[in-house]
């Protein structure tokens, strides 16, 4: 009885498995352009399909978290099958660049964006901009703080949310260390913690918490308002605010792309990179994800000032790769 049943289960499974193993093991020589993408599928694949229609080049994409993909690329080293790495933040790009795994890019590509939005080693380039903002509830916050230093005042006790494990928050703290020095930055973090700041895992959770009335303000990237609103299928009661011009709280970070030095398809990879920086795609980023275009300088996401008018501090994005100091500081303060 039992053997019969086991056979009844095992036989079809064995058949399916062997068939698919054969299919799976078929040599995939001359695979297409291999992309490791930290940008999620639904945000990038429509553009990649367009690229294929235009050029006939078919990219094979491995999606993942930007930081995990960076760790994977570092682990693969010179054996990496990847040709191109699309990252959602400058830090992950910087880590690959520091390890010397990126190839130098053509001037034609580099010159598409301003110097401050690309690597100083000339081996990666930003493709879209993301601005740090102070998300707040217009109902419960009438006067916006003008500096991140005001966030530590008793007025905001228990009302602020941050996501200290998030790469975008850590990039902001790195910028803070660069501008004020380590002890001042540590001091600010200590005071923020003492002010009963609430900790979240993701930026989107902070925005949702403001909408739900759990907290009143949060340090996030600018596009989460649209993301959360879309996810909930309704308008949310959260607005984006800025600090006074030059405050580190307004810093601009980028999502960007680099070409791996081990790639044997650098030509097609460059073609794709140029395509991602073309006007049509840049406009797409602006409309789909409400990110800033780094090419269309006067275009802006609905309801926000254009990029050139963001009161942002000057930050060298190439320096964001080494977050170990930042992490050590956050650990010392006890926020992560």
């Amino acid at each position, binding site marked *: 009885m039992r053997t019969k049943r086991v056979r009844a289960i095992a036989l079809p499974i064995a058949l399916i498995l062997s068939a698919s193993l054969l299919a799976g093991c078929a040599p995939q020589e001359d695979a297409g352009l291999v992309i490791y993408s930290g940008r999620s599928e639904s945000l990038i694949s429509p553009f990649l399909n367009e690229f294929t229609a235009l050029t006939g080049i078919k990219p094979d994409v491995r999606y993942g978290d930007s930081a995990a993909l960076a760790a994977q690329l570092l682990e693969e080293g010179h054996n990496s099958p990847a040709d191109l790495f699309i990252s959602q933040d400058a830090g992950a790009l910087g880590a690959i660049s520091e390890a010397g795994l990126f190839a130098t890019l053509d001037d034609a590509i580099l010159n598409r964006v301003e110097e401050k939005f690309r690597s100083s080693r000339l081996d990666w380039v930003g493709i879209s901009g993301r601005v740090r903002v102070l998300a707040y509830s217009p109902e419960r916050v009438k006067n916006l703080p003008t500096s991140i230093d005001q966030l530590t005042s008793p007025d905001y006790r228990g009302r602020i949310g941050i996501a200290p494990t998030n790469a975008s928050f850590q990039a902001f703290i790195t910028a803070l260390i660069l501008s004020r020095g380590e002890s001042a930055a540590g001091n600010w973090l200590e005071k923020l913690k003492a002010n009963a700041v609430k900790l979240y895992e993701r930026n*989107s959770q902070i925005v949702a918490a403001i909408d739900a009335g759990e907290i009143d303000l949060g340090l996030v990237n600018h596009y989460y308002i649209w993301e959360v609103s879309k996810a909930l299928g309704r308008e949310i009661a959260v607005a984006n605010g800025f600090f006074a011009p030059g405050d580190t709280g307004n810093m601009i970070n980028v999502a960007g792309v680099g070409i791996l030095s081990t790639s044997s398809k650098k030509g097609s990879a460059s073609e794709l990179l140029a395509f991602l920086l073309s006007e049509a795609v840049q406009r797409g980023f602006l409309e789909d994800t409400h990110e800033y275009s780094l090419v269309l300088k006067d275009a802006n996401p609905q309801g926000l000032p254009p990029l050139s008018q963001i009161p942002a501090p000057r930050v060298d994005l190439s320096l964001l790769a080494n977050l170990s100091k930042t992490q050590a500081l956050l650990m010392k303060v006890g926020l992560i």
Partner: protein
Amino acid sequence: MLAFLAASLPLFYLLRRALDAQISEIALILFRGKTLEILATTLGLTAAVTACASLIGVALAWMLFNIDFPFKSGLQALVILPVAIPSYVFAYSWILLIPGFKGFWAALFVLVLATTPYVTLTTLAALRRSDWSTYEVSQTLGLNGWQIFARVTWPQIKNSVAAGSLLSSLYVLSDFGAIALLGVDTLTRAIENIYRGSFDRSSASILALILVAISALLIRLEERSRQKLNIVKSSARIITKGVTTGKLRIKLIALLAINTYLALGLVIPISQLLSIFFANSTSINYSLLSKASLSTLLAACLGALIALALALPVGVLSAQGSKLGKVSDKAILIVHALPGIVMGLALVSFGSSIGWLYQSLLLLSFAYALLFMAKAVGSVRSSVARVPENLIEISATLGQKKSATFRRVVIPLATPGLLSGTLLVLLAAMKELPATLMLKPIGFETLATQMWSYTSIFRFNEAAPYALLLVLVAAIPTFLINRPDKGDGLGGDRI
């Protein structure tokens, strides 16, 4: 031997990476206040979850075995199904239900729901192969239900309960999804954060080695609690029903308890998924959905088969008391506490130099086997250990070769344990994410990776159908294997 080598692969990787670190760095990581705090939280949470899950798991298994209900075999399969729900889905559905659901107690609650099935399943399997004759004797002697449990049942299931509890504690150690959403700082979260923030693989490896040390400790504990069975294994009968209690009051209480668990662990997450989906329903891409289901099943089945192939010799050798078997057994279990990202990177490090193997279906399934064979090895060991020696002797007396005895006596009798172990590997592999993202062939999407691609951009409504299907697909093997009353599968006929 192969299994041992495979299991020690990640350990070698960790040691190599950890040795890259500077001594001062190591000291900074190990001796800061926060590390101690993290360590305390990790240990506290693991202990609390394991204790609760064991208690509830044994209670559920006992009730489902000893008390007659309508649709009993269905219930027996249902209580195992929460294993198929990823821990972050659990966490997220409760966060939606209770605003501000966060912190240690929230994590305790969610992880108990998620890990109880490990104890329930191993205990049920043990109950089914417990010795029927001792029940008959104890009933003849006029012992009551509680006395029978304490004196007859418990000694026979104790080892399996310990094995299940160990699985649940290793699950807590390696969990990231629920822990991160609920904001609890455990070692696994700290490891993940280091990878994310500084790409610093050596500090992360040092923390991972601490995790390895903790799991080694837990395994030692479990081993010490495991006693040599001093029951004479005379009967090889496999039983499907225990000492039936017919009292209505007890029946009602039991039914209430079982349904409460099902409501919290299955109905609430699923109904939350449904409500997320319908709150903002979008068109479903059915071809993508069905392709992802098939891929999930394919990779997970392959993984489960490889795991069984590796765990079987280890379990058998370990049950026979062989040194190699015991060492491999432990290596497999230790590795089980490691977070998926660590295992993924270890296999990337080893696989990327072998072009044809790297990011193939084979390597992915191998990764699943490596990650989860710990879930099978315990039940293989204990079910092989319970095969009556006199049957093996009789078989030898009848002139059967060792291999034939193994095939015709040991395997059939151990089948319930083997199946339940393999099932656990299968269910766990189906929802695996971090290693899958790194190792899957490009374009090969599983339900978990699809779900992730939507949740990572906060599109929970689009992720919901994938999560629902994950539970549904997982239900198939669970029901198929868990049909004791039909006289096959886990239960088997009485011999």
